[in-house]
C-alpha cells in the first residue's frame, strides 16, 4: 500500500463522536512535499480544523504523527509528534515524545492517527494492528497516569503493549496537562493533555506486529556506519560521552556558566547552588542508563532520591528542564525534592516545565504580597520551600484553591491576579518559558522564543553554544541568520522524524545537516531527495505553520517576550545591560525577511505560491490573483 519505503501508507482516522474508525491511504502528495511528522500533520490541521475553532471543542483534532524514519534504525527514531490547536496559546501546537510508543504505532501499521470529535463518555482506544476498538474508560477516569498505564497493559493482556495517556490534569483540562507514554516520556507542552481530556479520551493502547520496509537497505547501512564512525571518533573528545553519562541535566552546568539558567522566576541567569542539582550531582542519583527505541545515546536515565522522605522508587528523569524549572527557578537546591516533584507531575499528568514556571511566578507574587496565605490556602509559598512546591503541584492537578487558577497557565493566572504580576509572568503567546533565560546574555534565545510558533520553546533552535562562541556579545548581530540556520537544521528531522537531541550532539562533528537528512531519506524511502529539497521543505514547513497562526489571528505583536526579559540584568556577566524591545524588533524584521515574509511577519500569497502552497494562500487570503 505504501508508495515509498519507511511509510506504512496508512492513516487511522477515529471519530469519537460516532464511535467509529476508518483507515485511509497516506496522502502521497502531502508526503512528497512535507515528508511526514510535523510538516504533514500541520497540513492536516490547517485543512481540517476550521479557523477560530475552540481548541477544547469537538471541532479540534488531535494528530499523532510518525515520519518515514520512525523506527528505522536511525539513531533517535523512536519518536512521534502530537499536533493540535493549543488551548493555552490558541495557536499551532506540536509536541514530541520519545520512548517506544512511536515504533509500536508504526509497527501497528499507521503513519498517522487523527482523532476527531468527542466521546460521550470516558473512553480509550485499543489498537492491535488492524483491530481498532473504542472502549469504555469510566473505570480509569481519575486514575493517575502511571497506575492507569499499568492497568491498561493488564486489561489488554499484553505487557508489550504501548500506552499514550493523560492523567487527572488532562481530564480537568489543565493548560499544563501532558500526554505521557512509556511512563516517563511526555508530549508535554501547550495543554496537549487538555485537548485529549476534552475528547473524553484517556488513552491509546497500541500493539503492532508488522514490518517497516526500507527501500535501499545497503544505502541505509552505509549511512549508519558513517555516522557511527563519527560517533566513535568524537565520543571522548566532545560533549557526547558526558551526555551519555549525565543525560540532559549536564546542560545546567553549561547554562549556569553562561548565565542563562533560570533562577528565582527568571530574575537571574545563574544559581549559586547549581552544583547541588547539576549533571554531576544527578549522576549520583542515577540507578540505570535507559534509552528510547533505537537510540544509542541514552539520555533517559532512571534516578532515585537518596532520602527516604521522598518518592521511594526510581523514576525516569528528572531532565534538565525539570531540574532548572522546579529546581533553580523555584530556588530548590535539593535533587531529591526535584525528583519527588517530577514524580508528582508525571503521575498527575502535568508538565514539569509549565508547573515549575507558574509555581515560581506564584512564589514571586507571594513574596511581593500580591498573593497571601489567604490565597494559597495557608501554604507558605516562599522561594526555596520544597514542600510548598509539592502541595501546589497537587493543587494544580486537582484544581483546588489557587491551583485552579495556576492550572490555566501563567498567562491567564497573571491576567486574573493583575497588580503588576504580568510583568514577571514568563511566557510567549501563553506558553511558559522553558529553561533558557533570554536577555542581554542571549539575545538569540529571545528571538527563538519570540518566533517559535507554539510559544516560548527551546527545541526549534538551540543557539546556546554557537551564539556565545561566534557572535558579538550583547548585540543583535547575526542572531536572525543563526536562529534560522539552526531551526532549518531541525525541520527535516521533525518531519522525518527523529530526536533533535541526536541532531544537536552529532552536529558537533558536523553531521545531521541537510545532506544527511537527504541521504537517509533517499535510502529509507527510495524517493530521490536532495539537499535542495530539504531547504525547500524548511521554507514550506516554517511558512505553513506561520500561515496557520496568522489565520488564527497572530500578528507580529505576539512575537514578543515577557516584560521582565526587557529589563536590565541585575547581576551576572551582563549586569546593567539590557535586551531592548528595539533589539528584538531588529532581529524579528531580519528573521521575517530571511523567511520571505512581510516586515509584519505575514507570508504573502506570492511566497506561498512560490513554495507550492497555493491552496494555503487561498485559504489564508480568500483567493490568489
Amino acid at each position: 500500500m505504501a508508495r515509498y519505503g519507511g511509510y506504512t501508507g496508512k492513516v487511522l482516522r477515529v471519530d469519537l463522536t460516532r464511535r467509529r474508525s476508518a483507515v485511509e491511504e497516506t496522502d502521497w502528495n502531502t508526503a512528497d512535499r512535507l515528508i511526514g511528522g510535523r510538516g504533514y500533520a500541520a497540513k492536516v490541521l490547517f485543512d481540517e480544523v476550521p479557523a477560530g475553532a475552540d481548541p477544547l471543542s469537538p471541532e479540534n483534532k488531535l494528530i499523532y504523527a510518525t515520519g518515514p524514519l520512525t523506527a528505522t534504525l536511525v539513531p533517535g527514531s523512536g519518536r512521534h509528534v502530537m499536533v493540535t490547536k493549543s488551548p493555552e496559546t490558541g495557536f499551532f501546537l506540536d509536541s514530541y515524545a520519545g520512548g517506544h510508543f512511536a515504533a509500536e504505532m508504526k509497527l501497528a501499521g499507521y503513519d498517522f492517527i487523527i482523532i476527531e470529535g468527542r466521546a460521550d463518555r470516558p473512553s480509550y482506544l485499543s489498537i492491535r494492528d488492524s483491530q481498532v476498538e473504542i472502549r469504555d474508560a469510566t473505570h480509569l477516569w481519575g486514575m493517575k497516569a502511571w497506575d492507569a498505564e499499568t492497568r491498561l497493559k493488564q486489561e489488554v493482556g499484553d505487557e508489550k503493549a504501548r500506552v499514550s495517556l493523560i492523567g487527572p490534569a488532562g481530564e480537568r483540562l489543565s493548560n499544563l496537562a501532558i500526554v505521557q507514554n512509556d511512563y516517563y516520556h511526555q508530549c508535554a507542552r501547550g495543554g496537549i493533555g487538555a485537548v485529549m481530556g476534552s475528547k473524553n479520551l484517556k488513552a491509546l493502547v497500541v500493539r503492532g506486529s508488522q514490518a517497516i520496509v526500507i527501500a535501499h537497505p545497503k544505502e541505509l547501512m552505509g549511512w549508519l556506519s558513517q555516522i557511527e564512525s563519527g560517533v566513535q571518533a568524537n565520543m571522548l573528545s566532545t560533549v557526547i560521552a558526558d551526555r551519555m553519562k549525565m543525560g540532559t541535566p549536564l546542560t545546567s552546568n553549561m547554562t549556569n556558566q553562561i548565565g542563562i539558567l533560570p533562577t528565582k522566576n527568571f530574575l537571574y541567569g545563574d544559581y549559586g547552588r547549581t552544583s547541588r542539582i547539576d549533571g554531576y550531582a544527578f549522576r549520583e542519583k542515577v540507578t540505570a542508563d535507559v534509552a528510547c527505541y533505537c537510540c544509542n545515546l541514552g539520555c533517559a536515565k532512571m534516578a532515585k532520591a537518596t532520602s527516604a522522605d521522598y518518592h521511594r522508587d526510581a523514576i525516569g528523569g528528572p531532565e534538565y528542564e525539570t531540574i532548572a524549572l522546579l529546581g533553580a527557578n523555584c530556588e530548590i537546591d535539593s535533587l531529591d525534592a526535584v525528583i519527588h516533584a517530577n514524580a508528582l507531575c508525571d503521575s498527575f499528568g502535568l508538565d514539569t516545565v509549565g508547573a515549575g514556571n507558574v509555581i515560581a511566578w506564584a512564589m514571586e507574587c507571594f513574596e511581593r504580597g500580591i498573593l497571601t496565605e489567604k490565597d494559597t490556602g495557608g501554604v507558605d509559598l516562599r522561594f526555596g520551600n520544597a514542600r510548598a512546591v509539592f502541595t501546589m503541584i497537587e493543587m494544580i492537578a486537582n484544581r483546588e484553591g489557587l491551583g485552579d487558577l495556576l492550572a490555566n497557565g501563567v498567562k491567564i493566572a497573571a491576567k486574573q491576579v493583575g497588580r503588576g504580576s504580568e510583568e514577571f509572568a514568563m511566557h510567549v503567546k501563553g506558553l511558559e518559558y522553558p529553561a533558557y533565560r533570554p536577555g542581554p546574555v542571549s539575545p538569540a534565545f529571545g528571538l527563538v522564543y519570540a518566533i517559535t510558533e507554539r510559544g516560548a520553546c527551546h527545541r526549534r533552535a538551540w543557539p546556546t553554544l554557537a551564539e556565545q562562541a561566534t557572535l558579538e556579545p550583547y548585540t543583535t548581530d547575526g542572531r536572525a541568520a543563526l536562529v534560522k540556520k539552526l531551526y532549518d537544521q531541525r525541520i527535516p528531522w521533525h518531519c522525518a522524524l527523529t530526536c533533535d537531541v541526536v541532531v544537536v550532539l552529532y552536529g558537533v562533528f558536523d553531521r545531521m545537516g541537510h545532506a544527511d537528512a537527504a541521504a537517509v531519506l533517499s535510502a529509507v524511502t527510495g524517493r530521490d531527495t536532495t539537499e535542495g529539497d530539504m531547504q525547500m521543505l524548511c521554507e514550506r514547513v516554517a511558512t505553513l505553520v506561520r500561515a496557520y497562526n496568522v489565520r488564527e489571528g497572530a500578528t507580529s505583536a505576539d512575537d514578543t517576550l515577557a516584560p521582565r526579559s526587557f529589563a536590565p540584568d541585575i547581576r551576572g556577566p551582563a549586569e546593567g545591560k539590557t535586551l531592548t524591545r528595539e533589539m528584538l524588533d531588529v532581529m524579528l524584521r531580519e528573521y521575517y525577511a530571511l523567511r520571505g515574509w512581510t516586515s509584519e511577519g505575514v507570508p504573502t500569497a506570492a511566497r506561498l505560491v512560490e513554495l507550492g502552497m497555493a491552496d494555503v494562500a487561498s485559504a489564508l487570503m480568500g483567493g490568489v490573483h
Partner: protein
Amino acid sequence: MKKLVIDSKLCTGCRYCEAICSFEHSDGAIAPNKARVRVRENSFTGSSITVACRQCAKPRCVDACPHFALRQDLVLGIPHVDRTSCRGAQCLACVQACPHGAMFFDHDQGLPVTCDLCAGDPACVKVCRRYPHLPGAALSYG
C-alpha cells in the same frame, strides 16, 4: 567456541538489537517481533532483560524435538531447524523446552527461529553501544 555474552545489567532497553536482527534476517525490513534476540524491557522500572540463544552444551531444544528437526551446530553452538521435518505450530516442543525463552516462533514462516549468530559475526553485537562510563556493552561475542 565463541559465546554470545549477555549482561542485562548493561542493557538500556533501546532494542537496537531487535531491530537490526530483523533487518539482517529479511530483505531490509524492520520487524522486532521477528527478531532472534529480544529485549524484555520494563519501562516502569527501567530494567531490561536481553534474551538470546545461550549456546547450551546440551541444548534442551534439540533434545525435546520429537521429529529430530533440530541439530546442534558444533562450530557455533546454536541449533539449526530443518524446515522439512519440523511440524511448526502443531508441535512447539522446542519453544517450550528452552529454559531461556530464546526459541521464538515465526508465525508467518510457521517455524521456530532462534539466534544464528549471523554465521559468526552477530549484527546485534555491532550495534550494542558500549557507554564510555560503563564497564562494557550488554552484548558481546568472544
